[in-house]
């Protein structure tokens, strides 16, 4: 243990010059942790607009109408200026409600007069019944910009963790090469020259997790309560706690992925 502490101390002293790279490596760990926290806590989607109600007309058709008659009828209705869309429904379908007879669904334009259109539809030959249906239209939900940013941050952060980690470790190994050779030639345990590298990586991970914690703590003070970011606040103690082991493990990846000379 004493030998390991001595070797680690000498390794870290030899690499003080590389503190800038180490700090960037730690920052990349922070970026990954912050992105993960955002992905975990932010709502997955946001509606693209407010919900609205829509009126539809369900026309039940006479069984005497042939397919050509129905087709002609649909084209006639669709040509009306107050109609937006016409579609066929067959028995067994369930949209916009369970269908038992051949029907047409007429969707009026938003600016049209629904009562006038309903009266006009009821007068058509071959239409046995006109039902008016109201339905709520939920606008499409799209991923929030913050979430997209978090995904990009996560991917960029992971790339940087590996890239910077491999570069920092490579340079640290180069600075420590003579000592490493000396220890190898002495038959010393690999723990003596690999251990300090692991220590450096864990240090970068913990440092990154510390910055993650600091950022979240600052965020608790400054995030306005009426924004989506406020949803992250209850997660902060968990995220901060998990950040330390996750950060350390993350920073260890380059140790195993970088080529050992």
């Amino acid at each position, binding site marked *: 243990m*004493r*030998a390991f502490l001595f070797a680690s101390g*000498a390794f870290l002293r030899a690499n003080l010059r590389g503190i800038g790279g180490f700090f960037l490596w730690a920052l990349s760990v922070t970026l990954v942790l912050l992105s993960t926290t955002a992905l975990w806590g932010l709502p997955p989607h946001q509606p693209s607009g407010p919900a609205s109600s829509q009126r539809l007309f369900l026309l039940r058709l006479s069984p005497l109408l042939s397919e050509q008659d129905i087709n002609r009828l649909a084209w006639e209705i669709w040509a009306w200026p107050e109609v937006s869309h016409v579609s066929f429904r067959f028995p067994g379908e369930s949209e916009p409600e369970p269908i038992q007879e051949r029907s047409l669904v007429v969707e009026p334009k938003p600016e049209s007069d629904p009562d006038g259109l309903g009266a006009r539809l009821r007068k058509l030959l071959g239409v046995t019944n006109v039902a008016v249906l109201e339905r709520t239209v939920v606008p499409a939900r799209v991923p929030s910009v913050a979430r997209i940013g978090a995904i990009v941050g996560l991917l960029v952060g992971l790339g940087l963790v590996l890239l910077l980690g491999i570069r920092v470790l490579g340079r640290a190994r180069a600075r420590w090469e*003579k*000592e490493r050779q000396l*220890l190898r*030639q*002495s*038959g010393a*345990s690999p723990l003596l020259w690999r251990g300090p590298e692991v220590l450096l990586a864990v240090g970068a991970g913990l440092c990154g997790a510390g910055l993650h914690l600091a950022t979240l703590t600052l965020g608790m003070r400054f995030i306005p309560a009426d924004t989506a970011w406020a949803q992250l606040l209850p997660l902060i103690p968990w995220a901060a706690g998990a950040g330390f082991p996750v950060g350390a493990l993350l920073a260890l990846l380059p140790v195993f992925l970088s080529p050992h000379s």
Partner: protein
Amino acid sequence: MLAIQVAELRFATEEGVLVLDRLSFGVPREGFVWVVGPTGSGKTLLLQILLGEVRPHGGQILLLGRNIRRIAKRHFRELRRKVGYMPEEPNFLPNRTVLGNLQFKMRALGVSGEAAADGVERALDLAGLRPHAAARPEALTPLERKALSLALALCPDSSVLFVDDPLRDLDPGAQEALLAILERTNRAGVTLLATSREAALLLEHGFSPGPGPRGIVYLRESVVK
């Protein structure tokens, strides 16, 4: 009693070049044996095998009475602390003094206090580096650098020393001086197994072909299987 015993050692490269073919020899405790052979005959390879860094394809190796192919890793590391290795290219820490180099190795191997101080003193004395203890390696002559490499190999408390081609790249005067340092180390009770490409100088210094405490083992050139 033999400090190093090699029996029927075999090694061939992946390309099928037979480098070591049933090599057998022994080095008595406190003996000084040279392995001589041309470039590529397997001298450095032999030392790497004896140090457990390369696995041979056959044969037995007893180091200080222990079979290194059957010993547990932990026990082998303990054994390795008694076996020093002086590489062909001197390896030292350029940013530390001679004394600092030796102290680094002692502390990195977990030796401190009186044991470390004694080990460093012994290494400095045997290598003849006491006057240069405060010097940086860059200020040393090629001979003194070899001596520093030897001193490092003697730390922490080596009783067996493998020395890889120590006379290489030295002028005749420096070769004589280094041989004298090695002889002094041997007289202090350290068993030496060294390699060289030429036997003439060794024959002049009383080493004789064949087995014995001051023997010369010849390696032939590698052959394709």
